[in-house]
């Protein structure tokens, strides 16, 4: 058969390579800056644009989407053409992909620094940029699939399966997670609220890790590792098994980011179990990589590229074992909200992702520029400095995590928290933060050495934009011959069918978890006393989102004694139904704020305290690392935007009265005046519509609602008479529940613990002793006074049995 002549497009590859290294160095220097900020708050520079809350999303987005994103495109555009023996389908689409992606990055950098953010981690960009991203991503997928259709080889190689799964997975995740109702060009509200938003966000967040940082890199590994070492892939069968199992299982694992939080138990259990099942499929890639290196380890000694591949595979294997372990509830208790997670993602990010990119670059750059690497010595130096940097970065953070967690949970013999002041637990780990800066610095130095090496290499070489190649035209084989071809082998030559199957395999996990959370009411039990935010509180909330407060402050108290003692009552699912978007956060560099508004709780602070603290946290406590927010006192809330925000919330189902948007600004001003007057009594002058007042209003709302009196408590309810069961069996059953639930406060014999917990055996009754009154006390509770309502935990007949037991057994 006659060979066809064609040209590979190397120009697009070179463009993406250039973007990779340029954004890469910027992204990690921003990382170094925010590491400095955590240890030395002076590096916040006292500017709103450079505070940690704004720069941390810039670092994560820049590393993931700018550095690693461009590296993926570079790696894919080179290998895809060669694996399919054809030029990319369209140069125009390639160019749109390249320039569009760079535009997204620039817009992201500008908007994040300006505080324009949705606050959804790794999806912080506002809706116009989200739409742009979706468009560029579709262009990329279109170009890739069209290239697959015009290929000159029969079968699609394993690397490309991973590229396809990446395209499909990210498209699905990005679109579903970004659903939001725009309020203005720069502001939108997530259509999901509270626990639903959390589930969607971490389905996205976890799978952004999977489908942006894992699957494309496995694809790159399947191409660049065997090429660089010149060995065959160890096992084709393993490729198939771990590909399908990984893309199916990954999508389920998101809820492991929400363990012990305000989420139904079934969703948490799916997060744990699917993470455990991911160990083997994840390791499949590592094993196939390492076994491909068999018999070629002598080459590893001489090649910086191969050394980086080895570190990448090792880091991948470590991180994908560590991840499932962190998904176990009792391990997660330690790793969540501490620096463990930060250490974990940097092992993966610096080792697996950056390591693989470095390896790829050291192999690809000299090849494309038809030369040898300028200095193998410098390349090796980069390898050792970077590897050392990873260790010096991660080990202190693991240490910091365990230290801080042990301090959080430590009790004195008298039963009080040993370190009730959160700041003590942070000050303790600052030395580890300093050590981490050294690790990061080493990594940056290594990167700069690589840049110099590439500069010299490129200068000494020559490259072409179009490289000639030839291959015979593809003659389709036709239908599958069952004797000669397995089913999998057959779909490997059917790109579209392959993609459709992959799409459905990917969709299952998200569908099973998200659809019930959105549509099944019992998953979100509502709480009657939880009310929507007032306009001023809502504006304050938007400032909280914009400043990235969630980066350091969580808003969800887990049901651990040491958390409820420190912060207050643990968080309930129904508390967050008006939270578009949710603000639970994922790391506590500062204390949790879920109960900042509970006046009688340990977290409540007066308006004057908040004012002074925002103005200068270090003046309040020299050890504090929080940035200063003096502009809150001078910047005003944009009142023109408030009615539109209320209308948007109404559209999302928040029950403001009809036409409330017209009333909102007036209410906002009157609530603001109250707070301003309160501050004024402490000698503080501030405008009632300033950002400061809005922030204080919001913080004073947090977590308050569940300790508000129930409506029934103010007006005694007309209670229907109840006849209580008096059988011995009823008493026995009731006694069991009594000992399990009631005895903790009222004592096993009903004697109570005076004065807080009343006796049930005397003749004094706070809320009446008619059967229906006792039943009402048990089922509804008196939350303000400390009595919990049990209607969601006990059935009606169980409550009747309990009431009977209290009246007829204990009280006799």
């Amino acid at each position, binding site marked *: 058969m006659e060979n066809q002549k064609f040209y590979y497009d190397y120009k697009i590859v070179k463009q993406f390579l250039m973007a990779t290294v340029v954004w890469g160095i910027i992204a990690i220097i921003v990382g170094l800056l925010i590491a400095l900020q955590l240890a030395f708050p002076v590096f916040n520079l006292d500017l709103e644009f450079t505070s940690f809350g704004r720069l941390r999303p810039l670092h994560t987005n820049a590393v993931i989407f700018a550095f690693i994103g461009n590296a993926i495109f570079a790696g894919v555009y080179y290998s895809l053409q060669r694996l399919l023996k054809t030029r990319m389908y369209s140069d125009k689409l390639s160019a749109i992909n390249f320039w569009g992606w760079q535009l997204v990055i620039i817009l992201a950098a500008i908007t994040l620094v300006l505080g324009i953010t949705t606050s959804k981690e790794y999806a912080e960009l506002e809706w116009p940029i989200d739409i742009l991203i979706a468009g560029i991503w579709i262009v990329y997928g279109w170009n890739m699939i069209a290239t697959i259709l015009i290929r000159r080889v029969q079968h699609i190689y394993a690397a490309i399966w991973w590229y396809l799964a990446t395209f499909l997975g990210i498209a699905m995740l990005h679109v579903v997670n970004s659903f939001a109702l725009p309020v203005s060009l720069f502001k939108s509200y997530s259509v999901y609220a509270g626990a639903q938003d959390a589930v969607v966000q971490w389905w996205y967040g976890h799978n952004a890790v999977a489908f942006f940082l894992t699957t494309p890199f496995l694809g790159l590994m399947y191409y660049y590792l065997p090429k660089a070492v010149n060995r*065959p892939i160890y096992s084709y069968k393993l490729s198939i098994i771990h590909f399908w199992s990984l893309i199916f299982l990954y999508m389920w694992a998101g809820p492991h980011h929400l363990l012990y939080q305000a989420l139904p138990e079934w969703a948490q259990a799916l997060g744990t179990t699917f993470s455990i099942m991911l160990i083997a499929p994840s390791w499949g890639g590592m094993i196939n990589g390492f076994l491909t290196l068999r018999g070629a380890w002598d080459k590893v000694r001489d090649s910086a590229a191969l050394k980086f591949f080895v570190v990448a595979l090792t880091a991948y294997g470590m991180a994908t074992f560590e991840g499932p372990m962190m998904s176990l509830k009792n391990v997660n208790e330690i790793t969540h909200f501490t620096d463990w997670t930060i250490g974990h993602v940097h092992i993966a990010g610096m080792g697996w992702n950056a390591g693989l990119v470095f390896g790829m670059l050291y192999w690809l750059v000299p090849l494309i520029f038809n030369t040898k690497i300028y200095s193998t010595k410098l390349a090796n130096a980069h390898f050792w400095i970077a590897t050392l940097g990873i260790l010096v970065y991660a080990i202190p953070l693991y240490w910091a995590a365990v230290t801080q967690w042990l301090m959080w949970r430590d009790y004195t013999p*008298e039963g009080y928290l040993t370190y009730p002041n959160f700041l003590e637990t942070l000050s303790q780990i600052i030395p580890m933060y300093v050590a981490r800066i050294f690790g990061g610095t080493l990594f940056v130095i290594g990167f700069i050495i690589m840049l110099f090496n590439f500069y010299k290499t490129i200068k000494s070489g020559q490259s072409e934009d179009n490289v000639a190649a030839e291959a015979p035209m593809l003659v389709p084989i036709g239908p599958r011959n069952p004797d000669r071809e397995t089913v999998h082998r057959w779909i490997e030559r059917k790109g579209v069918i392959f993609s459709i199957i992959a799409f459905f395999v990917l969709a299952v996990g998200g569908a099973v978890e998200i659809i019930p959370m959105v549509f099944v009411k019992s998953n979100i039990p509502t709480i009657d006393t939880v009310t929507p935010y007032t306009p001023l509180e809502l504006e304050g909330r938007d400032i909280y989102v914009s400043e990235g407060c969630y980066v350091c402050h969580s808003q969800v108290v887990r049901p651990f004694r040491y958390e409820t003692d420190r912060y207050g009552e643990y968080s309930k699912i129904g508390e967050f139904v008006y939270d578009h978007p949710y603000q639970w956060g994922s790391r506590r560099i500062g204390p949790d704020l879920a109960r900042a508004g509970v006046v009688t709780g340990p977290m409540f602070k*007066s308006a004057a305290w908040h004012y002074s603290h925002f103005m200068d946290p270090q003046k309040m406590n020299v050890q504090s690392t929080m940035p200063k927010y003096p502009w809150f006192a001078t910047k005003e809330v944009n009142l023109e935007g408030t009615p539109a925000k209320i209308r948007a919330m109404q559209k999302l189902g928040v029950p403001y009265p009809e036409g409330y948007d017209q009333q909102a600004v007036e209410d906002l001003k009157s609530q603001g005046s109250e707070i301003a007057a309160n501050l004024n009594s402490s000698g503080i002058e501030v405008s009632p519509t300033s950002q400061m007042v809005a922030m204080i209003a919001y913080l004073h709302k947090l977590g308050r609602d569940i300790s508000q009196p129930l409506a029934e408590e103010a007006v005694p309810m007309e209670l229907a008479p109840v006849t209580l069961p008096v059988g011995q069996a009823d008493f026995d059953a009731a006694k069991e529940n009594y000992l399990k639930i009631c005895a903790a406060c009222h004592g096993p014999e009903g004697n109570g613990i005076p004065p807080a917990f009343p006796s049930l055996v005397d003749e004094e009754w706070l809320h009446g002793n008619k059967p229906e009154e006792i039943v009402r006390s048990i089922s509804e509770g008196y939350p303000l006074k400390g009595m919990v309502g049990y209607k969601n935990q006990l059935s009606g007949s169980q409550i009747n049995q309990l009431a009977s037991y209290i009246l007829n057994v204990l009280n006799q």
Partner: protein
Amino acid sequence: MTTENDKHIERGHEFSDHREHAMEEHNYDGIQELDNPPPQWIMFIFYLTIGISILYGAYYFWIGIGADQHQEYDKAIEAARMKQDSSQPAAPLDLLSDEASLSEGKTIYAEMNCAACHGIEGEGNAIGPNLIDEFWIHGCSFTDVFNIIKNGEPLKGMTPFKGQLSDEKIQKVASYVLVTMKGYSPSSTKEAQGEKCP
């Protein structure tokens, strides 16, 4: 213009194990694939983790013997309460004046960051009143000071410390405020607030 040849294709591979075979028609830009089965141990781990997951579901849901997070919490609270009951001290609380207690009181004052609102030397600031003059908002007896630290007055800005500090620690910090602080003379003091102490 250069044509790039794939040197690898023709060269072939030396396999360390003779039973291995490169698969026919599996050649992609020079990359071949072997027909090795996946290592048995990784398949074993795979099946094992699936089994563990099924048992996990059974334990928490189908059989339902595992405690959910709220039951776990209730148990922990109950255990802590049992422990605390047996360790309740009954010593009467009164003003302390020994050096050790006062210096411990000073440490607690610093650790709990009282200075944020009351100043390092008790001089007070925009948030909290001074602690060194004769005027007191909530009373100046030892019991008054003890109680305001313990129970707070959150709406006026005073945090209740009862969940965070034991009675003994509150006793020490109250003593520090009433005994040691009297001797401080900060450069500037917030204006007097409250009633003059009898």
